[in-house]
């Protein structure tokens, strides 16, 4: 690089515009790749984007704080997106009236057992306290999980990363798991994915089946609420 190019890079690399644009370019490319592969779950666009962006940051020796100064504009939208979940939830209101009781009981059981089992597995295999705490809200959608992490004394940024890993895992394994368990009902499949793998699982569910997607969104909204209400209590009981 000559010095003129270098000073342009130095200028641009410290502006939020570059990192916002890079994030969008990488995601668009990853999404296109995913579509070309006929929605192969191994090419999950979130996973591919994160791996590519981390590699890019390492190669350009960019600080995460600097990257986040641009990416925060995308991150910010998680808040209104959580509020927006009221709309798919409302669109399912007539079905919700029929199944609300079994859905509420199933989601609460899933949320509680999921959090407790993850914490115990991590503890048993030797994770430290901070990791265990940060794993508790791993199935909750990112902004809320970060809020819960803050309240229970975990690391919000670690929780956010674990939330994304959990979502990708859920999206990857859900189809295999449901066929192994012989579950065929799309509303049940959707609810299970939404509880375990929040928004990333819901995005996957919508690609598999519209009904599964709607119920996944519903489960995600309900489990977000139930987690926010119960997890701080459960963590106090566990630790």
């Amino acid at each position: 690089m000559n010095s003129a190019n270098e000073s342009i890079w130095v200028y641009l690399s410290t502006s939020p515009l570059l990192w916002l644009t890079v994030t969008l370019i990488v995601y668009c490319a990853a999404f296109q790749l995913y579509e070309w592969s006929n929605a192969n779950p191994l090419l999950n666009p979130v996973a591919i984007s994160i791996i590519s962006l981390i590699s890019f940051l390492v190669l350009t020796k960019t600080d995460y704080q600097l990257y986040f100064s641009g990416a925060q504009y995308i991150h910010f939208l998680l808040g209104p997106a959580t509020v927006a979940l009221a709309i798919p939830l409302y669109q399912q209101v007539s079905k919700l009236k029929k199944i609300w009781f079994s859905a509420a009981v199933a989601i609460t059981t899933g949320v509680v057992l999921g959090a407790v089992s993850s914490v115990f597995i991590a503890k048993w295999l030797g994770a430290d306290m901070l990791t265990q705490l940060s794993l508790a809200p791993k199935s909750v959608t990112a902004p809320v999980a970060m809020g819960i992490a803050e309240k229970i004394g975990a690391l919000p940024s670690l929780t956010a990363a674990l939330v994304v890993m959990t979502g990708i895992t859920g999206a990857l394994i859900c189809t295999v798991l449901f066929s192994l368990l012989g579950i065929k009902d799309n509303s049940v499949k959707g609810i299970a994915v939404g509880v375990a793998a929040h928004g990333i699982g819901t995005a996957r569910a919508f690609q598999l089946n519209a009904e599964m997607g709607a119920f996944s969104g519903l489960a995600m909204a309900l489990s977000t609420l139930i987690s926010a209400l119960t997890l701080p209590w459960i963590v106090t009981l566990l630790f």
Partner: protein
Amino acid sequence: MKFLYGLTLLLIYQLMGEGISLFFSLSVPGPVIGMSLLFLSLLVFYKIKNGNVDKQPQDDALTTSASAILSHLSLLFIPAGVGLIVHVDRLGDQWLPIIAAIVLGSIITMAVTAGVMLLLNRLLKIDENSQSENKI
């Protein structure tokens, strides 16, 4: 304009949620309270307007902006996911418990949720009617 109106409304509800969460120092994050308030508002609004909560438009400002923002929901997780870079040491040291907790925890969560749901549907005899219309 539809998108802008809808987005503004979403932000107003989020702001109300954050305000309530802070004011009463609740453990529930602001956006979740905003979501609950919006859901309740929709129930009340359509009950008054149509006398029936089941009738609802598909192309109003709120639905337009909500589907725009939710259609690429997974994009919104990327900035947080790249944050893995900060925790490389912790992940390197504790990769086994972390991976095991995530994979086994996800399997347990999905299996338990689906199991309880199927069991209760069967007990309450509501298993078929919620999905029969979608069977091909």
